[in-house]
């Protein structure tokens, strides 16, 4: 195992172990997403036909808001005991750390999605009329889009007053094209209109992922060392 991937693995296992023992992020995320599901169900009548058109937006808004909860804790956890300063002075490459954090967040948010999806299906009587397997790549690409930028902006908002509010303020405007793609792709698949296809949105989402993963990796070191 080469050095950078070793650091990535070590940080990732540490984060997962911490989460496994405390369950801070996943519990608050789950409860938050559950609240969104319940509260939204009062704002419109969740009959099958109507919810099919709204569910795409609803699901992703719930996941985006819930992900912010986990993302806020990513770096805040490292401030205690000056762990982040130790990272800064260590010769370890910054990108290895970033990847570990991003992959860790991806796992947490993916877990949340796996747990929440059955609930959504149950509460909103969802049944995909299009090719349902396509929801999987949409979910993977969409989650990565949220998580990669979120991890980056969480590191950025660390140096601001009221950082918990700053993260969504930075993240949401930039995420708009990704969010639009996820919502549209999901709705297209759920509605299953044969004249439209989710392919364009998946390509756009993949482009977004590639562009911003590159951007994050290119700029993370600068941001980490900006103190």
């Amino acid at each position, binding site marked *: 195992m080469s050095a950078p991937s070793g650091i990535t693995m070590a940080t990732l296992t540490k984060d997962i172990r911490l989460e496994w023992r405390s369950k801070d992020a996943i519990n608050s995320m789950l409860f938050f997403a559950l609240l969104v599901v319940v509260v939204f169900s009062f704002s419109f009548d969740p009959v099958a036909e109507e919810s099919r058109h709204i569910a795409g937006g609803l699901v992703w808004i719930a996941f985006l808001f819930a992900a912010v909860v986990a993302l806020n804790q990513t770096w805040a956890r490292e401030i205690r005991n000056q762990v982040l300063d130790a990272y800064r002075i260590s010769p370890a490459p910054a990108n290895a750390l970033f990847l570990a954090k991003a992959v860790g967040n991806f796992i947490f948010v993916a877990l949340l999605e796996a747990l929440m999806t059955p609930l959504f299906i149950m509460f909103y009587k969802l049944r995909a009329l299009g090719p349902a397997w396509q929801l999987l790549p949409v979910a993977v690409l969409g989650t990565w889009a949220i998580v990669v930028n979120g991890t980056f902006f969480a590191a*950025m908002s660390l140096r*601001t007053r*009221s950082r918990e509010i*700053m993260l969504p303020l930075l993240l949401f405007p*930039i995420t708009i*094209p990704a969010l*639009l793609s996820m919502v549209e792709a999901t709705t297209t698949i759920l509605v299953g209109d044969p004249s439209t296809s989710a392919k364009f949105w998946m390509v756009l989402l993949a482009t977004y992922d590639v562009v911003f993963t590159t951007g994050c990796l290119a700029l993370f070191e600068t*941001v980490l060392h900006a103190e």
Partner: protein
Amino acid sequence: MKKAFPILGLLTAALLSFALYEALVVAPREQTMGDVQRIFYYHVPSAWTAFLLFAINFLASVQYLVRPRPQADKIANWIVIALGALTSIGAYVVRPLPQNMYPSSVVTTGVAIVGLYFLIKKYFSEQETDILALTTAEVGVVFCTVVLVTGPLWARPVWGIWWTWDVRLTSTLVLWLIYVSYLMLRRFSTSGQTPVLAAALAVFGALDVPLVYFSIWFFRTQHPQPVIGGGGSIDPRMLHVLLINWLAFLCFAFLVCWSRYRLEQLQREVEETQALEALLEPRSTVR
């Protein structure tokens, strides 16, 4: 500075009043829309000015990030040149071009961006590129706000609605949101290295712009909406007035940017001096 500023101020005032006269009196009355159409002479120049300022903000931010790293600086130079060349070639090769884009305008934009990048590189120091980025973002948000306010004012009588989620309206709104978050980051940051964070955000915002445009473009072509009648030719007299107004707005934007730039420069000088004095103070008391 002391002499040039009032002279330019007077010139801008004269130009703005002349442009106002041209827009309200000289320009012909639009046949279907009537006098409401005259808001166009403020709306469009503001939009062009805002986009120009945002472009300068992006270029200055890139410069600020790469300047301390000679290798990254070199790579950035080549990327900028390659992008300029690609847009120039692409403008004549790619068909169809998105709505409201013409090969000549695309080439002009590409060449102007490359030119601006190297001008900023040549005439601004590292510290100054950051001040430039801050200034252009602030003034750009003001002009963008003017665009977003005058748009609905015009749309209400002409389209019958205040707002439609059309591609240009929506992407302008998203652009405005991104730059407001940029200014918020600058305001709320407690780091001593706010410029670095802000520059990184500006680069992210610029990467986002094409994605925003294409996503909304596709989104809206799927669901047709009552939108602006694209194409069509403009009366040459109207174009003339429009360009005079743009010139006036550019002068005005330049003037505002200049004074804001000087203000920020002086403020930083004062802060530096104060910090230096605070460092020197204890020693003088020891003596």
